[in-house]
Every structure is written in C-alpha cells, then in structure tokens.
C-alpha cells in the first residue's frame, strides 16, 4: 500500500514516565513515509542512511530520526533546518540548535515494527525496546551478558516464559548502558539488575560499580507487543 499526500504522522505519544515523554514510532514499510522522513534529514544523516546496507535499517533510522527531529524542533521552538546532531564517544547522539548543544535529552531505540523515542529534561536518558523474537539460544546469549542471578532466573523459566524473561532482562540492562552512553563496551555481566526487579518489580534504583555516588532510576515499560525499559539518573554528583 502506498499512502500519498495525506500521510499522517507515523509517531505518537505513547506514555509519560516521570518527566520523560515516550513516543511510539510505527516502523511499518510505506514508501511514502520513507520519502517524507528522508526529506527531513540533513546531509550527514542522509549519508548515514545511504551507508546502511539493509532496507530495514535505512527505514528504522530515517523514520525514527525524522520523528525525533519534528518532536525536538517543537520542544525547542526551532526550525528543523536549525537542528543537527553530535555524537559522544560511543555513539550516543545529542541535539544541537544552530551548532550549540541543546538543553534537552533524548534516546531512541528500534526493534522490528516498533521504534521508541524518550524526550525529557533528565541529563542522561537511556531507552531500549525489544520485540520478543523467538530464538533457540537465549541461555547462550545470556551467558555473555547476564549476571549470575539473572542467568539463574533465565534458567528457571519454562519454555513459555523464557522469551519474556530474556527480553525483559535484556531491555533493562540495555536501557542502563544506553543511559550512561557506553553501549556494550561496559561489561554487561558486571551490571546486576536490582534484586526487587528480578522478583518482578516494575521499577527500581541502580548504581554502577564505577560511579557509586550516582543513583539511576530504572523503569520496566514492557507490554504485550514488546519488552522495553527506561533509565535515567536521579542524582548527579
């Protein structure tokens, strides 16, 4: 199906979580949407999009980045053409208006048909979404990223709940390493998710071993369609 001139936005407000607005981005394939999205990107972003090898990856990037641009421009009261993005050491993007870093934080995640964007005033937001794709190697993957207690939880899950448990743990952990901006260059097995969250609590607090003075809030946003999580600092030194 090809929608033409009356294409509605492919994103919308999904939920509010403690000062952060989270938008859902529909990543279904529509040529007209892709074209509208690409038109909103600047030169650097268009070049990045062209480098991506898979059509799916190009679509995820363009649809999420274009939605992010519209939302940030609205919030910051600027024009799309004034916006650009910089990248921290491990690739975490931040926004610039007329070349100067903007006082707003955001994070983006995409998985399958679902993109999520968190925007807020918090200093370092981390967000992750994971469609629960069936796999045969959950425990094997878990051995490289989960702590001992998390691996035990996964091993205790029966066949029906294994993917729920795996993607929940994964998204919680990835939200934390995306909040701090390191991605997987920070040893993921060394991150022990809050014990209460392993028992099912929907939110908790976390301290990175190398940053003992900072407390991070972790929220489980998982729902029927996907696992998802949000992390941000509640105290900064």
């Amino acid at each position: 199906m090809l929608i033409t001139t009356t294409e509605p936005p492919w994103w919308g407000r999904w939920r509010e979580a403690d000062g952060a607005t989270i938008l859902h981005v529909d990543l279904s394939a529509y040529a007209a949407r892709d074209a509208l999205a690409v038109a909103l990107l600047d030169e650097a972003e268009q070049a990045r999009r062209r480098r991506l090898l898979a059509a799916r990856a190009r679509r995820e990037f363009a649809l999420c980045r274009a939605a992010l641009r519209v939302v940030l421009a609205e919030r910051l009261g600027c024009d799309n053409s004034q916006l650009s993005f910089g990248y921290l050491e491990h690739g975490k993007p931040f926004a610039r208006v007329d070349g100067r870093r903007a006082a707003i934080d955001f994070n983006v995640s995409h998985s399958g048909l679902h993109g999520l964007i968190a925007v807020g005033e918090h200093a370092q937001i981390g967000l992750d979404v994971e469609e629960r794709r069936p796999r045969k190697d959950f425990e094997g993957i878990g051995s490289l990223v989960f702590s001992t207690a998390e691996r035990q939880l996964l091993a205790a899950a029966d066949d029906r709940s294994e993917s729920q448990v795996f993607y929940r743990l994964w998204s919680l952990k990835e939200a934390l390493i995306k909040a701090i901006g390191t991605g997987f260059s920070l040893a993921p097995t060394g991150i022990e998710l809050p014990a209460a969250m392993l028992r099912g609590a929907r939110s908790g607090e976390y301290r990175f071993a190398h940053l003992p003075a900072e407390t991070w809030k972790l929220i489980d946003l998982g729902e029927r369609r996907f696992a998802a999580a949000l992390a941000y600092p509640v105290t900064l030194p």
Partner: protein
Amino acid sequence: MSNTADRLGTLIRDNLDLDHDPDLDVKFSDVAISSVEAVAFFKLVNEEFSLGLAAEECRQFETLRQLVDFIDARGG
C-alpha cells in the same frame, strides 16, 4: 578469501538474516544488526574459534576483516 574469512562467511550466512553477502570491509555499524543478534553472532564466533572473548570485547572490531586478522593472529 582466507580460511578464517570463509568460516566466518558461512557462520554469517547460516545464522544472520542478511539480505546481502558479507563484505570484509563494511563497518559493523553500517550492517546495523540488532544488539541481541550481534551478541548471538559473537557467541557463535567465540565457539567456532575458541576465542573466549567477553561481550564488551566485541566492540574493538569494526569490520569483519579486523575480526579475521585477530583470529588469524591467535592461530585460528
């Protein structure tokens, strides 16, 4: 292609859902597989070549060629 590159190519074709052939010099960041997929693949590479690397060590490789060179330097 070296023997190591061949073995990696087979691992990729058998396990990753890519709609293009693996290229030794394309950056992993431009292949843009999901992080779950990346760690799952890294686990297979670890097993195939008995590397014993941790998840955080995979970020040192930006391309397949760098991974091939690392494996070959370790004696395959």
